[in-house]
């Protein structure tokens, strides 16, 4: 392998790792909700779409950038608490599968509503980030991807700090640990769930802005949920660290496979490769790399 081949491998690898961060960004939203309520929230993708569409439509109506951001966040807060009130509360104590199917229904509602309100056309989203690749030691790196990675890192740091040093963060962890015990010591579950869904809405907003700037804001944005799912199972549903590591692994191996394996099978394998990879890992570790192992009792 020549030097240039080597450089090419590195470039593919770095590109893959950075796009993996974009997957993690979506996966974190899932983890937040799964950790505290045991719900696999299929609607996360449609929340990404909803947030991005709301933001971009506000900006297009000449609302200032910061104000749009604030309004969108307020909308996501309202959405989070509405979901808690109308969907989660009536379904409390039901099986996780029931809740999952409810979020499937929820994703139809949110997708439909987002496009009904704001229309179905594709919106361009310019965050004012300039996307010129720059060179480090002969390897081209996209500055946009790098910034996205930095934002993701900042968000994870922020979330971790929030979880460890605030009172509500402590309550989150208590609920994640044992819902009944948390209820018994007087934590208000509805409020906590509402807050968690809000936090997930915030993550969806960030993911929506970055992905929207990348792909344009349109219906297909909600399909990134399908990109995040293998990341999620690979890392384990209840680990933020798992979401990050899973994203990096999936991103890197997906790009490498596309370049080196793709030509042998006719290409286009990115649709299922991540799933196959996640499956292989799962066969060895059935609850993902960092997921909590469940102990089953009769």
């Amino acid at each position, binding site marked *: 392998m020549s030097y240039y081949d080597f450089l090419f491998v590195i470039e593919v690898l770095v590109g893959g790792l950075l796009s993996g961060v974009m997957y993690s960004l979506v996966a974190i939203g899932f983890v937040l909700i799964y950790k505290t309520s045991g719900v696999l929230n299929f609607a996360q993708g449609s929340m990404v779409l909803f947030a991005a569409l709301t933001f971009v439509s506000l900006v297009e109506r000449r609302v200032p950038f910061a104000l749009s951001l604030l309004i969108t966040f307020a909308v996501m807060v309202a959405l989070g608490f509405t979901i808690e009130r109308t969907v989660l509360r009536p379904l409390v104590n039901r099986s996780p599968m029931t809740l999952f199917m*409810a979020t499937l*229904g929820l994703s139809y509602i949110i997708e439909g509503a987002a496009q*009904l309100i704001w229309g179905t056309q594709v919106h361009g989203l310019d965050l004012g980030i300039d996307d010129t690749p720059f060179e480090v030691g002969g390897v081209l790196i996209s500055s946009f991807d790098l910034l996205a990675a930095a934002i993701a890192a900042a968000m994870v740091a922020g979330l971790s700090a929030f979880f460890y040093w605030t009172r509500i963060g402590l309550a989150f962890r208590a609920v994640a640990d044992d819902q009944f015990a948390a209820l018994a010591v007087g934590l208000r579950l509805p409020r906590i769930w509402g807050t968690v869904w809000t936090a997930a809405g915030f993550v969806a907003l960030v993911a929506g802005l970055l992905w929207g700037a990348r792909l344009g804001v349109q219906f297909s944005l909600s399909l990134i949920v399908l990109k995040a799912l293998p990341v999620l199972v690979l890392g384990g549903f209840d680990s933020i660290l798992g979401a990050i590591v899973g994203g990096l692994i999936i991103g890197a191996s997906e790009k490498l496979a596309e370049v080196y394996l793709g030509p042998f099978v006719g290409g286009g394998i990115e649709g*299922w490769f991540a799933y196959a990879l996640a499956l292989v890992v799962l066969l060895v570790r059935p609850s993902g790399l960092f997921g909590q192992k469940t102990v089953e009792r009769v």
Partner: protein
Amino acid sequence: MAVQALDAARLPVDWVKLVQKLALPTALFVVAYGVVPAYASGYLVEAILLPFLALSLAAVGLNLLTGYCGQLSLGSSAFMAVGAFAAYNFNLRVEGLPLAGTMILAGISAAGFGVVFGLPSLRLRGFYLAVSTLAAQFFVQWALTKFGWFSNDNPSGVISAPHLAVAGLSLDSATGRYLLSVTTVMVLTALVWRLVNSATGRNFIAVRDNETAARVIGVPVLRTKLLAFAISSFIIGIAGVLWAFTYLRTVEPAGFNLDRSFQILFIIIIGGLASIRGAFLGAAFIVVLPLFLSRLGAFLFGGLFDSGVLDMSQRIVLGALIIIFLIAEPSGLSALFDRLKRRIGSRSS
């Protein structure tokens, strides 16, 4: 002796019960083979009954896996696609294969596929499994589009369904296709009904309700799960054949996408999990709902809204219905039906 006498005394009552029991199936039979072929319009058959029958069968199959055995699958339409394409290829490449043979072979192909993608279920639980069934969904769609062999190297990838005939009788007319569908669905549903009332069916339920407990009392969990995947995929595969051959009249990978998988899942949620009747009620609901909503939209608002708006509103209504059913009637239309029957029964007596 006393027991025998008691039995003899009960006999006349049993006759009444038997008649009551046979009344509904007989009525169904008369409607399915007498009334519908004779009176139903082409539109009713083509636009409502054919998709209804294919989707019902797919829902029966998924219900076996998800409703009875508790293994959530998000890849149903992949198995439909395997069935449809297998049938197309068997029909194309095997000279003189009768239609029934083609369908059974297609079902077996889908079943083999189902077992392969069911293997992870031996290790994985719950959502981890559900996500891994998505692998089947994306892999199958990719393979069918990528390799031209499956669609006989047709450049567009869209192929028309072959001529349908049983024992020299052509079934290409709408009525013929309807009769083929309805017969297939009835036979398979009867088999499934037998299965869920057998020991195997009870094993399915035991695995669903508590896998560890099932293992403890001696249910062969691994074999039961794989069997559920195999039989469910067999049925869904044949449903795929019906969908492609009798309803769409074309075979194309794009029709078997994730939305179709969700649609089948929605059918069994709305109809009622672990209920065969529920699969049919749910399918009827899902097939008729969009037609009803678009008529209603046109009636209420005229041409005020374009089809895009209508489409979005349908999505919202469907999503809301799912949630409402999960909250208010977790056992679905099937339970609603039961309650209605009881109420009518108590009023008349």
